[in-house]
């Protein structure tokens, strides 16, 4: 990816991560990924790797997403060879690369992670189908990694999110730092991580909050680059 020169001024030519307003700083490296300007590095690779081990927070709002819901949504997904979770509030991977979250019973969110194409594929379908309604997504999305991640949740969320308390594929719609958010555990590039999504307009607030606590716990901001080896 082409790294841009650090610049905190707003760039209006590309989409910008909703968390960006909270990510200014001379050391921040930016790049445009999936047509969105995103922070790729906050510190040296060594520092970021160290943070990841304790508590790394990474902004992945730039991952493509696609949402749809409705009584026919599940059927429609199947019609388009999309693997969907069988039970409500759980997730699965479609062809290894696209995350499929089932919110409640009849709403779905896709997220193309590295190399996934499901969102692209479905968003290209323009025909509107009875009982299926597109849900435009503008999430702020984050990856949390490291040994102290549960300490962070202990302060931000009242639910028991320990692995022992969750099923591997649970999708949790709850409140994090006082706002509605979606939380899951997944393995990302071979690393066990927690994921958080919230409305993009809360992205800057969520980032500030996550970082404030991450830093207290000995971790901190980790750029997207640290997730692409």
């Amino acid at each position, binding site marked *: 990816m082409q790294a841009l020169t650090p610049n905190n001024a707003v760039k209006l030519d590309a989409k910008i991560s909703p968390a960006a307003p909270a990510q200014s700083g001379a050391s921040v490296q930016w790049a445009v990924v999936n047509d969105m300007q995103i922070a790729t590095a906050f510190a040296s690779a060594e520092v970021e790797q160290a943070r990841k081990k304790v508590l790394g927070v990474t902004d992945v709002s730039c991952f493509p997403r696609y949402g749809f819901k409705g009584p026919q949504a599940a059927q429609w997904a199947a019609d388009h060879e999309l693997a969907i979770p069988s039970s409500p509030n759980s997730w699965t991977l479609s062809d290894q690369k696209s995350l499929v979250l089932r919110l409640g019973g009849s709403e779905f969110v896709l997220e193309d992670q590295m190399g996934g194409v499901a969102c692209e594929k479905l968003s290209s379908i323009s025909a509107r189908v009875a009982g299926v309604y597109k849900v435009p997504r503008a999430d702020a999305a984050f990856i949390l990694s490291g040994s102290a991640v549960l300490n962070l949740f*202990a302060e931000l969320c*009242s639910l028991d999110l320990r692995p022992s308390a969750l099923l591997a594929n649970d999708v949790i719609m709850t409140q994090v730092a006082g706002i509605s958010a979606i939380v899951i555990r997944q393995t990302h590039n071979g690393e066990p991580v927690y994921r958080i999504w919230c409305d993009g307009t809360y992205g800057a607030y969520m980032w500030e909050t996550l970082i404030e606590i991450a830093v207290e716990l000995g971790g901190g901001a980790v750029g997207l680059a640290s997730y692409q080896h």
Partner: protein
Amino acid sequence: MSLRTTKQNGEWLDRTKKINFTFEGEAFTAFEGDTISSALWAAGQKVLGRSFKYHRARGVLSLANHDVNILVTDGIDTNMRADVVLVKDGMVLNAVNTIGGVKKDKNSYIDSISPLLPVGFYYKAFHTPRRFFPFWEKVIRKAAGLGIVNFDYPRILKRKLHTHCDVLVIGAGPTGLTAACVAAEAGLEVTIVDENQQAGGSLGYDRSGNVAMASQLTDLLAKVAGYSNITMITGAYAAGYYPDHLIPIVAANGITKVRAKTVIVASGAFEQPPVFRYNDLPGVMLGSAAQRLIYRYGVKPFNNGVVVTANDYGYRVALDLLAAGTKVVAVVDLRAEASPMAAEVTKRGVKVYPGHCVYEALASSDKSGVRGAIICAYDEQKNVAITAKKITLECDGIAMSAGWAPAGALLYQAGTAMQFDYAVQQFVPSRIPDGIFAAGKVNGIFELEQRINDAKRAANEALRYLGLSAPEVVTERHVGASPSHAYPMVPHDKGKNFVDFDEDIQIKDFVNAAKEGFDNIELMKRFTTVGMGPSQGKHSNMNAIRILAKIRNLPVEKIGTTTSRPFFHPTPIGHLGGRGFHSHRLTSLHQWHAEHGAVFTDIGAWKRAAYYPTVGQTKEDAIQTEAMAVRQTAGIIDGSSFGKIEVHGPDAAEFLERFFTGVYATQKVGSCRYVMLLDESGVIVDDGIASRLADDLFYLSVGTSNAAAVYREMQRSQQMWQLDLGLVNVTGAFGAINIAGPAAREILATLTDLDLSYESFPISSVRESIVAGVEARLIRVAFVSDVGYELHIPMVQVPQVWQALLDAGKKHGIRPFGSDTQRLLRLEMGHAMPGVDTDGLTNPFEIGAEWALKMSKSYFIGQRSLQILAKKPLRKRLVAFALAENFKGEMPMDCNLVLEGREILGRVTSIGYSKFIDRCIGLAFVTPAKTAIGAQFQIRTDNGSSVTATVVKTPFLKN
């Protein structure tokens, strides 16, 4: 002279670490692990504090976190509890609430005039004649309070954590530790909490002088340490019980909110003082306090001690005192029947006086301590001292053991029913809510072996509650002498026999309160203030109940207890408040607004740009400049915070018909209609625009502040109506820009291929097209200007469209405008805004919105109420008004009243000066008589001047 003993087995001190500090200007040394009280006591300092009301000298009472007469300040913090706060090197400490120091407190005169201050005296005086009260009030306010608050204390926001466990054990004494082991053995996740710095409870200090006891504790702690699934938290207290087993655990560094599946309460019992004259002198302390001094802090409580007891525990205390090197002058036992343990102490050369009481303690000349005790026979039936033959015993301290009160606060808070168990003269749980279990002293079980057994019983019950199998264990109730005396009270003509040390309440205060009619426990508590001090009655409530029972000649259980409320110990605001989360929402243009000098305003969670003052511009100037731009060329506003909701599906139109007041079934695709939402009572909730994008797709835009609530109500209605449709809230996904003004169309035309001619794209229509390379929904609205386009585009793409519009509009002098300017612009257009020009009771008729109502529809929310309201005479109506041309007087403001003589006709809801039409214009509620065009009414300004307003047509622009 130092009272420090040789090293005690299991003491909490690190004698290799010396600590220097000062108290009241004097230098002291201590060891690491000392509390402030233990360090001072070891150094022979007896007067540690002054009482709240009478300013009497006080010393160690409990050493168990309810010595609230011993509050100190280190100059930063105040009301620090010296009996439990660890002393630190370099501390500079002073007692609170004294004038001239703890030794010579100038306020101690109050003690000598205490007869003038009987119970409830403040109700009986100072109020007549009325004019003098303010003077007395000042005097009393001066005397009030304990410590002085430090206004420079740092704003520390402690972290607050949530944790979860299977079993929460409260209290790490032998009972709690045993219960924890049983639960852990079954593989459960156990958290055990104890307020003391170290675990062990009474096992650590109640030794009857027997060193071997220490090893019993060490073994138990070793066993606990062996379980990886036990989390031990010491130096932290369970502050209260809240529904569904939520218990906040308060430690120095913050609060942990524990959500437990079950709770085992093994919180033990508070030792209760017997009541006799001068039982509050420094040197008179609870037996358990003496034991804590000895075994935790290696401090000899006194040199020549008298033990006054009303149970067998006092004899154990005597043995511990002997072991510590205190000469025990005598054991004075209220009970006529000699204790089986009496022999134990007599053979150690201690004289025992059965059937005797301490009639009064003798104060040393300077009242700073004890010089002796007058004892005499005690009539256990009548509960009076038999003063015929008094004996004076020389001593420098008195240890008191009269009995116990259960530390049952959390049990009470959980809704436990308690009953009085005469075998132990104590309240014990009779019915405990599901999932909560009590064991040990709090359950009325006192013998060590029985407590261990009771712990197993409770733990097994907890296991069974969690669905595990565990054998039934039976606990035998207490047998033999009661650990608590039924009435350890010694009346004395001269009084000063204290029941409540926080509030200086004596026996006679209860007698008097009862005489005045405050003879049930709740009224007595309120009148005497017993138990209302910072220790929450830990050492006084039980005796108060006993005294009241005696006064009313009723059994104790008939008196009952006062309600227990959180907190178990007073809990710092900084802990409870902790780190708060102040969430806020930003539009994707936020940085742009900030970089262009926007002044922000909070609307709900949103930060909105209110206006953009240029250098040196006032708010008013900025707003007028921005408004003029819109009137003369063009302006753009970031409307991304508007509520935006899509209604998909065959029944979409039907849904709108029911939900809003207007007609939507016949609405053409590509057109927009006004929507108004009412509640069932016909009151206006919100309004907005419905754009029909397809037969089965409506796109709604509503106000910012109500967006979430409106969507929520739509979801609820859909739950009830079960129509064939889907609701999608796109508030955060879509942003919106409104470009308005005469040049708006020309500017927009440069960025889109869409035909913008007024014929093909008239007011109140919607189009979907590409603007500046971005897919957009264009809505032709006339909210702030006849020519205006709302562009609804994906939130993340708003900035690029925004910039494109600015660039394209540059040559026209386009300006961004904020939400405050928008207020003025819509006023010029004559639009009323829900929440601004309406209030919590305004119905559509009152704002002249009949045009928005389709009363002939079969149903819409609020319709039936409107039918009723329609029959009633209108009480007020919103009108547009203007002030006289070039009005120069005091400008009226929102909410100034419309008056006619004394009568209030209504109020101004919106007002502003419009530079464009050069008039002060506004909207106001007036009585129907004043609504005709040209009618005049008077507005009273803030400063009382009366301004004439004339009703005019809207929009004002056309006047």
